[in-house]
């Protein structure tokens, strides 16, 4: 009976994954992720670069579902191609990724829009609860033999911002929506994925931005489907 109560409690917790965490959770979660990232990577204070990325990021921000939201943009010194989103509203991009954008503002806006999509859709909080649910499932199933490991993993989840493929797809489409809303030609809206595909050195498997994402071909196909929907919708509106 004791274990039954335990299991029910954990199932209840898992059920909470369908319920939104309060907004302040994002700030606290973001704070932890910010601390972790700033410990692992050194932020770049080069004024020209920071101004450049902030200018583009703020342009994208104005075309999101939350145009009044304040986003912060930070460049991290790293030779890995990567970008991160902290639920507190900070978007991180590595110097290597920025360099490999080769001055393509549209592609850079796409990458930033993708990360801002994660923030606006609150993927981090959802992922955290999903993970907690999965861990509780393990506990429920396997009992005390998985106990310590599952709890340790739940703690680690707080510092992890890797998202499910569904979430990545949603963020890709968010980025495309923001770009088109800014007036970018829909044909160019998947430019950031094309750039990633053509980057000379991709990140090693340990990095998150590319590793946890579905393959780029599939991502481009998803984006192409959505752009097709836009064209169809526009045609319908014109004929009406």
């Amino acid at each position, binding site marked *: 009976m004791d*274990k039954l109560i*335990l299991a029910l409690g*954990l199932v209840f917790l898992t059920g909470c994954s369908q319920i939104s965490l309060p907004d302040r959770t994002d700030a606290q979660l973001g704070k932890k992720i910010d601390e972790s990232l700033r410990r692992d990577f050194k932020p770049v204070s080069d004024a020209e*670069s920071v101004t450049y990325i902030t200018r583009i990021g703020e342009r994208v921000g104005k075309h999101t579902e939350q145009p009044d939201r304040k986003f912060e943009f930070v*460049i991290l010194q790293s030779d890995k191609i990567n970008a991160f989103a902290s639920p507190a509203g900070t978007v991180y991009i590595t110097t290597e990724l*920025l360099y490999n954008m080769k001055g393509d*503002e549209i592609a850079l806006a796409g990458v930033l829009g993708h990360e801002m999509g994660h923030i606006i859709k609150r993927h981090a909080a959802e992922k955290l609860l*999903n993970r907690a649910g999965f861990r509780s499932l393990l506990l429920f199933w396997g009992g005390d033999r998985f106990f310590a490991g599952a709890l340790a993993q739940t703690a680690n989840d707080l510092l992890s911002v890797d998202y499910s493929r569904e979430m990545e797809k949603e963020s890709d489409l968010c980025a495309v929506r923001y770009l088109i*809303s800014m007036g970018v030609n829909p044909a160019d809206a998947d430019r950031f994925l094309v750039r990633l595909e053509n980057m000379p050195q991709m990140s090693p498997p340990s990095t998150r931005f590319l590793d946890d994402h579905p393959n780029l071909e599939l991502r481009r196909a998803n984006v192409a489907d959505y752009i097709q929907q836009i064209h169809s919708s526009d045609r319908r509106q014109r004929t009406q």
Partner: protein
Amino acid sequence: MSRTRKTQLFCLFSLLLCGSALRAERFVSSDGNLAFDLPSGWRKSAARELKESTIELTGGQARLAAYPVFSLTPGRSLTAQLEADRTLVLNNLQRPSGFKQLSGKNCEYFYFSWQGFSGLNAMGYLNCGGKLFHAVISSAKDFKELSGLVYAARLTARKADPDFSPYKIVTAGPKNSPVTFDINTGEYPKIEASEKALRLTRFDNAEMQIGESEMPLDKFDKHCEDFGRMARLANKWRFCCSSASAKTDCFFTDETRVYYAGAVNVPSERIAVLLASAKVTSIINKNTQNAEPYANLSTKLPLQGNPEERPLSSLPPLAARGMGTPIKLLLGILGLALGTLLLRMLLPEPDNAPFSLDPQSPYPLTIVRKYFSPDLVEEITDSRGTVFTSRSSRKTELIAGMFLLLFIFCALAAILLPLAGLEGARFAGYSALALQLAVLFMLAAALIPKQLFLYNNSQLVAYAVMAPVFAFQKTFTVFTSEGKPVAVIRRPLFRLRRRWIIAGPDGADRLEMYEDLVIKSLLRRVFGQLWGLLRTDYVISDGEAPCGILRQNWALSSSRTLFIGDEPEIDYRVVLLMGLLASRVDPDRWYPWIS
């Protein structure tokens, strides 16, 4: 002509002759860069026109060839170059010496030598006023002739010095934001570039090492105050240096990172010159290279307020995202659980006896679990309506479980409370204590021998006690209410099918009980009971043929029926105890907890 006059003319002529004989011939390269005051007997060796600073001389058997070195191979120091040359000589089965240095009036010669068939050979580099020449001397008579040649070498003034190519060194840093220093290799001929630092050595007496410092940026000013000297360079780099004896320590910053320069025999003025050439280039790559098929399209964002801008609401909405895999999995398991529970509730209990039963027999015995008790309590009813109650203490396990729950609660609180902006640190301490207590009680539960008592109207009928030994089988001794041992029930471990055996007091096996399906037994060990789906019935055998069965009933609560056809010559209460022990050791759980 007077005698005096003749003497004067002889002396003058002799002086002229001697002068011409003593005056050394000077050979100057075609570009006027390198010159040799040739010793007696030496001359230009080739009739062909030699370009730039190339010089080829002969003196008897001896030869000298010098060629200008405009740049060392990037990444290779002079020492490394000499080492490479020496390896070539070694490969020609010669025995070269170690590296040596000869200092003439104008030039220094860094070389190695070896004795050949026709004389002394040397190969190395002449450093004349910071200019490098690869110089090979072959078949010299002796060391005196060799050193004489070095002594004779000199750098001549030139209108436009062909300086060595600047040696660009890049320190570690993010791509396109390197710190670059333009170093004149002539000035610092020995250069070793590594990923973390650059090292400049003017041969063996000057050295400079630059690397990223551990010093945080905000400590830079305070540190420089201690040094007492700080300078701001034209390129906005700031640095400060402190000299102690021949060692100079400098810290400098570009306002993003702090670098350290440790220098030996390099004046701080030279360090300032070096730092003045440092610059950080932009992280933004301006070198736009469009990826196909966008080569001809703009990479710039459209201007703000352009006519193509449109509200997000005009775009098709995003499809609702499906549930995450863990949720799907969880829902699947919950559905399975509910289905199984419904099955257990709705399926009728089979009432047919698998064996013909003697009407006088106490069988079948129905065993029903009674919940909401700290002990494991089961009620047994025989065919005559006699009701027995079995009781087995499990308080230790309950306390262990309670602490386990407390541990989960505290650990989750310690993790989740900070997310809500609340203090959760103290729960981490509580969870650690709760875990320790849970482990303690789990150990105690494992060590305390299990006991099972059988009562009839609160009167003790019989009881079984597990032997407190660790072996490859669990052994329970069955006692009467007076404490007389009547049987031994044992369960061998590590069997594909769970098996229980009853032996008499003499040790001879009387009856055995084993699971009816191996596959269910194996699956249960992986997937747990699956709410009773993977429960097994037990077949009871007297050693020759099945004579009974312990059947798991389809019911919401744990319920079993014990049938014995041909009643064995063994007290039915002992058989009952075996069935109860099976339930005690391997209880029926309707949640998937792996036992």
